[in-house]
């Protein structure tokens, strides 16, 4: 383990071209699966949290195989913060909107008063919107947890 640590401090791990090529092929499929899990969260196992963790894990995998710079090129810190806050805002905003419109907190059938789709259709739609918000927030929190932990908080180089 000591040798591993010295190697990690001397150069970025994962310089092997086999690992890089495999990760390059795997990442789009992982992200597609994460989106599938989020979108199908309300009638099959999965949902916003699990799909968000899968989406975040794809960026963590990228940061492990390449380095932190490559990840921040594709998915900058600012975009990460914006997406995370947008996710939290979707969740709480939807809850507040339903409360303002006269329903209970997160009672999606109250949204029927804006776009008339029928209360049953809106319950399904509302869960989907909340899952999207939760997925975005969880993805950005997972990615920023890894970034801060791997670089010691100064975001210069990864593991």
């Amino acid at each position, binding site marked *: 383990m000591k040798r591993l640590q010295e190697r990690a401090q001397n150069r970025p791990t994962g310089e092997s071209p086999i690992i890089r090529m495999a990760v390059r092929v795997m990442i789009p499929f992982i992200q597609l699966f994460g989106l599938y899990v989020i979108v199908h969260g309300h009638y099959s*196992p999965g949902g916003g949290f699990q799909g968000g*963790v899968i989406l975040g*894990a794809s960026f963590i995998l990228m940061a492990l195989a390449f380095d932190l710079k490559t990840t921040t090129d594709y998915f900058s810190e600012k975009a990460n913060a914006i997406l995370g806050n947008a996710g939290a805002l979707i969740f709480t905003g939807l809850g507040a909107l339903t409360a303002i419109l006269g329903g209970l907190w997160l009672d999606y059938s109250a949204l029927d008063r804006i776009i008339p789709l029928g209360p049953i259709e809106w319950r399904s739609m509302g869960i989907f919107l909340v899952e999207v918000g939760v997925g975005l927030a969880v993805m950005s929190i997972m990615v920023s947890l*890894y970034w801060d932990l791997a670089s010691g908080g100064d975001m210069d180089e990864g593991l």
Partner: protein
Amino acid sequence: MIWLLDLIILALVVVCAVATITLRDLLGAAIVFGVYSFLMCLLWAEMGAVDVAFTEATVGAGVSTILFIAAIFRTTRRSKD
């Protein structure tokens, strides 16, 4: 549901849990903890709680193992004082 499979997975879970707290090597303990999480995921999926199994597989076996390893890389082998 299949009690023999249940029993095998449960025995492996106990073995992994004991190994995690007795291993001196931190990196090895993190890896065995990942194995423990995955076995718990198998147990939950086998008992019918697919949603919990999904969460355990993604968070327990996937992300938390990586976060443990990232934290271990910041430690040193022996304390300096």
